[in-house]
């Protein structure tokens, strides 16, 4: 194996169903339902997915949801803001742990 990530694997996602068809079908049905128009529009859901894709740093998801966002009518400014939201939450999640650090430091310090 010459590497872990291959763009050609993305369209083969459904191959995972070969190991357990029933679970794949349940996941696929759930996935489709999640992204269907609801209280949020399909366009809004694709922007949320793009942000999450960056938070979990999944190259497959970034590829798929960049295209999905464009195909739902979003623009690069909106998509960039979604990435910044992911960045802010990830950064904020690190920074807020600084309170743990402060709690421990305050407990140990004179």
């Amino acid at each position: 194996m010459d590497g872990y990530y291959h763009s050609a694997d993305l369209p083969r996602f459904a191959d995972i169903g070969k190991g357990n068809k029933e679970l794949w079908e349940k996941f696929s049905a759930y996935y489709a339902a999640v992204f269907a128009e609801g209280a949020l529009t399909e366009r809004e859901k694709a922007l949320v997915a793009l942000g999450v894709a960056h938070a979990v740093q999944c190259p497959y998801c970034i590829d798929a949801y960049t295209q999905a966002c464009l195909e739902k009518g979003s623009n690069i400014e909106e998509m960039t803001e979604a990435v910044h939201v992911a960045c802010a939450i990830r950064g904020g999640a690190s920074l807020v742990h600084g309170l743990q650090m402060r709690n421990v430091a305050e407990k140990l310090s004179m």
Partner: protein
Amino acid sequence: MGLSLKARADSLASPAEQLRILSTPNGFPSFEERMRAASLFPLAATGVTVFQINVGKLCNQTCAHCHVDAGPDRKEIMTRETAELCIRALAATDIPTVDITGGAPELNPNFRWLVEQARALGRHVMDRSNLTVLLLPAQEDLAEFLARHKVEIIASLPYYRAAQTDAQRGVGVFDKSIEALRKLNALGYGQDGSGLQLNLIYNPVGAFLPPKQEAIEAQFKKELARQHGIAFNRLYTITNMPISRFLEFLLATRNYEGYMERLANAFNPVAAAGVMCRYTLSVGWDGTLYDCDFNQMLDLPTGFGAPRHIRDFEAGALHRRRIVTGNHCYGCAAGAGSSCGGNTA
């Protein structure tokens, strides 16, 4: 402003070269194979309700995606003699809609005559406008002329922001388009109860498929009203066809294979059954007949024994004609489908 492929002597100016690229196997079934599998081959016309006249390749813009390879350097335009043959053919039928396209069709000196004649025959007339033509000094009275003749305007506006629109259509085009839309609104176009239809055309600014028509229409209505106070009636989505200057973009950016795969994977039999060539007859600037404007640009005239020139127009022989297809037709059959009137599925 850029030059057309033809003016640059680019090999893609040749329809034969485009067809060679499009017919090269690419790891997905040919359009014909997909149509056969969907029991839609051979594709046949169901009648002719739209008489589409392409009056030529002359345009005041050189858009990056243009399937016509139109531009200021293109001089091929329909003569009065051919325009008269169009009107004569039209008069012999009850085809209800005349769809005039180009290039910028308004720049043809016979455009207004064609509109007047078609309206005098009681036909609904559509003008596929790039909007900026309405601001040219020589076309100062064009908007009023269109309003007076109740011409439906189908206007290109790929996005409600300048960056995307200008990237596709040229620097400054968005601002001019907004100015032209304001002018049309002031005449009553796009306003409820005016009877003056103003419809927009969205096509993707890049190698991806268009959004759902209703969703992007709502987005456009909200943004154009909020940012510019502009109203319009409907928005139609059109998929970029992998031919001419959009094909050039796909090849230059190494998006060609991915885009064709995207189109082929999105093949939708319902969209394929509703393609516009089944109810449209397309007339070229020189009077040659085609099944659609895209076939026209690929130099694929009507086939299988159907009349091939407007002088030989015979409604009976064209209404049930067999359609000429190729891999470019994936563009009209992908996703929710694509036609000059928007989605088809």
